[in-house]
């Protein structure tokens, strides 16, 4: 069972996303910085990357493209750009930089789950 790589620098947001996703039984590995996250992704390929574009150590857009390339190009795990910059142009750019979806903040828990479930099937309840 793969995991979801979450790159989000805002701790409260990260906590909420982890809360939502783990409540849906996804495994989440969280990084507040992009570069360690990239190393982790290369070390252990995630099933989905959920990444804030606004990162403290590296430009999220560039990172997503580099990762998409390094993780197999078109066969790389989907990357969901998650940002508070919500303009249409931002969305277009995300598409150009190798993302599979664009998630606008604020989003509702249902929206997040709907979107994630489009790429990664929800894990079956083991208990």
């Amino acid at each position: 069972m793969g995991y979801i790589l979450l790159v989000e620098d805002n701790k409260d947001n990260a906590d909420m996303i982890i809360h939502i996703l783990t409540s849906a039984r996804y495994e989440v590995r969280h990084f507040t910085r992009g570069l360690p996250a990239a190393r982790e992704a290369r070390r252990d390929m995630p099933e989905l990357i959920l990444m804030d574009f606004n990162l403290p150590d590296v430009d999220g857009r560039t990172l997503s493209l580099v990762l998409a390339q390094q993780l197999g190009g078109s066969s790389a795990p989907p990357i969901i750009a998650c940002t508070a910059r919500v303009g249409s142009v931002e969305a277009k750019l995300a598409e150009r930089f190798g993302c599979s979806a664009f998630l606008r903040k604020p989003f509702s828990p249902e929206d997040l789950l709907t979107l994630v479930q489009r790429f990664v099937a929800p894990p079956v309840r083991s208990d």
Partner: protein
Amino acid sequence: MVPKVTRRLQNKLIFAFVVVLLIPTGIISFYSLRTAASTLIQKIGAEELRTLVSQANDIEKRLIDVKEDLIFLSLAPPTRRYASIINGLPDPNDVYRDAEVALLRTFLDRSTIHQYLDFRIIDLAGQELLHVDSTGEILSSEDDVNVAGEAYFNQAIGLPSTQVFISDYDLVRTEGVIEQPYVPILYYSVPLEVDGANVAVLVAKVSLEPLFWDITSRSAAPIFLVNRDGSYLINPDSNRLYGRILNTFVTFDGERSREDVITMFGSDQGIITQSSDMPDSLQVFVHIRPETQISIRWLLIRAIPISAILGEVNATQQVAILLSLISLLAAILVAVLLTRSIVRPIRQLSEVADSVRQGRWDVIVPGTGGRDEIGHLADAFDGMLRELKSVYGSLEARVASRTAELSSANLKLSEANRKAEEASRAKSLFLSNMSHELRTPLNVIIGYSHSILVMPQMFNNVPIPETYRPYLKLIEDNGHYLIGLINDILDLSKIEAGRLELAPTMVDLPEIFRGVLATATGLLKDKALQLRPDYPEDLPPVWADPMRVRQITLNLLSNAVKFTNSGSITLRAQVTDEVWVSISVIDTGIGIPEDARTVIFDRFRQISSGKFSEIEGTGLGLDISKQLSQLHGGDLTVASEVGKGSKFTFTLPVATAEQRESAAAPALLNESFTIFERSGLLDQEVCSILLVEDEVSMRELLRRALEVAGYIVIDTHDGGQVMELALGLLPNLIILDVNLPHVSGWDVIAQLKGDPATADIPVIVCTASTDRTRAAVLGAADFIAKPATPEQVIDVVRERLLRVER
């Protein structure tokens, strides 16, 4: 351009001088010449008159001489004795007769003076007794010749002795026929007395030719002698002579005007006259009357041509003209000199003024210091010039200072402008960042409030107390409201900055409408309103930014919900004019008064009366919607009736065939997320490059150039980050400027090469230092000496990456 200075003033002055001089000269000359002429005429006339009078006296004297000759002859003893013979005294052997003939012959010999043509002695019966002609021959008496009818006989026969009768003029005749050439004559006759009684008459025929010759020869001017009957005795025109005798009727009184006749015949004294009959001549005339009681009464006229008289005057006139000319020349000379002395300084002044006008201030004003008016003018001009110069100088200084002020003001202005632009940019950036900053915590607020309400599984299915539910809902709703406000403000700031960009694509309107209607249904809450979709499902796709279409539609719908309490809200869409789709939101709400319809699109305006004030909102929505419609090429309009409802309509362009082809598959859209079809872009391998360069402009330049060349570029100025970035990104290549602040580039290379994760990444050293060997030793793949163009760098990069691939 300096106007050509014609010497008009000088010419005028000279002309004036000449005129002023010529007029008096002319007047004086004319007057003096007139006076001279008339004086001369009078003088000459008087002289002529004197001459003529003396001539007349001579003539008279000569005529009287003849008379005295005859008196002498009549008293001479031979004549007396011959008379006695007539009276009966015997004359044996004609002794007395011969004595008498001898006497008469002596007079005939004297005919050089008085040309006696013949003498006759005639008895009382008129018979010729003795006839001695000019040759001295005694002509035989002819019996048939009787002169009793002749005036010279019958007038003389009655006269006392020593009284002489002088006949009127006659011409020489032979036996009664006038001889030619005509010889004018006079008959002198005197009675011969014996013992107190007249017994015979002595008649002398005297030629007037010598006298007339003498008269004409003594006069150069035409001279006329007129008999008392008007006949000309002397006339330059010989055809006019002897009019009475020759019956030619050419007479003085027939030829001349009445005035002339009266003047000349009527006056006793000689007179000088200028008559209209002979306008070119001055006429002088005198009467000749040797004996008052007898028949001779002549008028002697001399006509002196005026031209002859005025010849002298003309000479004077020529001298006068010559003198006038000389004085004229002198006047012109004086005028030229004088005017030059006036005009030249003025012209020089005007030339100076011209120079000054052309901006040459360094001229010297000529003629200053003169004591006359021109000198004063020059002085005044010089003063004025100095004044002007100083004023001009200060003016220039003032202009310079004003220019400086202006340019500094301009500088300040452009600085202020730059600052304003900067501020505007800063504002936009601030708003953008702020909205992002606001969104992030709101995400937590909304997310959790919603999760608590609807996702109990997140909280181990622990139910929340129902008391909290509405308040949590309030938190969530207000969170959404805040997001709306933030969105509006962000949009508006972008619109103001002209930076609102659309991401148009093919948009399936019914799909958007479904989402929007769902959201709007949520807005209805407990309002008894019907939401009515009214559009065909097969609406053609429009070319628009789906987010924005959603935004406009939702804005109109939420407005309609706000202002409508009952009835329905219809969302209608239809194709108009084939290339447009018009989308209307029609409500049955309170409507908008006419005067408010234009205001509703104004920023921050909400109709502030009555019920409206209860309704919350930023008032930005309609403005933004209108702007967004216009950005799409359409517009947003409103039609409304108070109390019945409103209809807001916006238009979007139908996607053209080209647009349909170019567009990717329609993006899947949700209010919160967009899912992309992953493009083939990722199939091509794109190399990433880590660019380490501390100089900003160089870094920007290289980054852009490399991106354009198709590489992914991560750049940094911080040498300390290189290792972390390299490890995190594992770029295909690193471009490194070794002259970095704080950290040595050489150390960075060593570090990179020391870590097995990054040791294989080729490093291109790019530096102004020439230490190529050191770079090679440290393991740098390539070395680029600065300065290098981006093209050179790209070439090296491309070459290196190709080699790595192999």
